[in-house]
């Protein structure tokens, strides 16, 4: 049973802003399907009472005190910007969305 079909991969690629060719979509659909199947077999073992693991290390409450630390200068902050103006990052006009 295929969970991940070509259309689903194309949808995800679009959401993730990844351009993919027709061959890549076919290939990825097959590969992702294998991965999903593998995870399925893990889920058979994990009973509903087992909470989902988001972190493998049993650490909690890693906090920082509210004290100001180092910042970048404006020049450094903008050093890798493709374009900048007035001390700010310059980006193409954004249409249809706000």
């Amino acid at each position, binding site marked *: 049973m295929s969970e991940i079909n070509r259309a689903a991969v194309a*949808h*995800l690629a679009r*959401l*993730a*802003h990844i351009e993919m060719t027709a061959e890549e979509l076919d290939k990825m659909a097959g590969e992702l399907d294998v991965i999903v199947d593998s995870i399925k077999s893990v889920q058979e073992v994990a009973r509903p009472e087992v909470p*989902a693991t*988001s*972190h493998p*290390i049993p*650490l*909690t*409450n*890693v*906090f*920082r*005190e*509210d*004290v*100001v*630390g*180092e*910042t*970048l*200068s*404006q020049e450094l*902050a*903008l050093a890798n910007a493709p374009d900048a*103006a*007035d*001390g*700010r*990052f*310059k*980006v*193409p*006009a*954004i*249409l*249809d*969305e*706000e």
Partner: protein
Amino acid sequence: MAATQDLVAFDEAMEKYDPVLGFEVHVELNTKTKMFSAAPNAFGDVPNTNVSPVDLGLPGVLPVVNKSAVEYSIMIGLALNCKIAESCFFARKNYFYPDTPKNFQTSQYEDPICYDGYLDIELEDGEVFRVEIERAHMEEDAGKLTHMGGATGRIQGAEYSLVDYNRAGVPLVEIVTKPIVGAGSRAPELARAYVAAVREIVKNLGVSDARMERGNVRCDANVSLMPKGATQFGTRSETKNVNSLRAVERAVYFEIQRHAAMLESGQKVVQETRHWHEDTRSTTSGRPKSDADDYRYFPEPDLVPVVTTKAWIEELRARLPEPPAERRKRLKADWGYADAEFRDVVNAGVMDSIEETIAAGASAAVARKWWMGEISRRAKEAEVEPSELGVSPQTVVELDRLVQAGKINDKLARQVLDGVLAGEGSPEEVVEKRGLAVVSDDSALLEAIDAALAAQPEVAEKIRGGKVQAAGAIVGGVMKATRGQADAGRVRELIFERLGVQG
């Protein structure tokens, strides 16, 4: 677009439909640093200077949670009568937009830190409406975009945009209500009162500067209509950018009228975001909900869970100040003001000033008289808040003391206040410098009375004949002669004494 939208009059809409409301209020916390980095959380600085590699989403960086931001979030939850999660984690909300340099916003998804709360909202006439809180979760703010090249500074027609990431990563708490049913025609009023109450609470807690004009408190308002008596909600619109209390009320009012017109003409309401425009007091279509809203949330792998203990929560609960609504109730009872008097005091924004003035030694009646009278009047003229006028509680206390001692009268007291506001010193000093004390020397008064009687012999004759009300003209003459610095009551007594009649 906005001008051509069909509307059904609000009252008419309310005869046929029940509105259902929902609010998402974003509160910017006033921690010293950001949610996940040690860069300063500050407004109005030089662009892109309050940024660290974490805020810019540079490769290889690791976020670390600001403990104060977590504590502030819990305090907000407690003030909203929420349950606090024993354990919760952060999640990534994935989307592409230039104000979000990481291409995801670090937020919370399945398990917010605060959930299942409520807030009792008192409307102006005293009716109390309970708003249920679904959740309050921690997240981070985005950078600030400025659209350039368009005629109006709006996104439409812009040639390019400039981004300042100083605000990126500023701690936010998003407070989400459950659907609010049953407000009826009071929906716009309730909307305003709810946002006002949240703003007041976070300000009172000291966890946010709560300045709406700076975007510290921002509201998205959801509105839908269903036929009267129905239980199935209609399709909702979500209006963004409603960032003043007045705008919240107006946006809900407008959307109810717009929805009603669509339903009446047999159209379907589209589930979409809408933009509020203060200039036209209307909304325009943003974008429809689409699969681009598939945010592919997943647990943030770079941050470990936040675990709360009972002891920690109780320690934070002990730090909560008296809730604003309870404080108002207590002060009203203490001061003995009537309902209408107290409401006027609250609406005029002078409750704190009155409290301080009473603490400084004035009676409740005197404090109210000054703050609601002379000080409010001057503030209105100067177009500032009464508390910003520069009148200290001590000034009011001293002015009243001078009046009580008979040193000045009410009229002179107003001149003394002028002097204080002009920086001439304390009330006592102003009385001294301007020579404003009441003339209390009887001989000086008698001299003026004799002059006035001589100037108006026919009036003097009338008074001798028993027409005591005619004395007003003589009193007026004396007040004029003393430039208002006489005690009118004493002048009156002396006139009768002089003429040998009973007053």
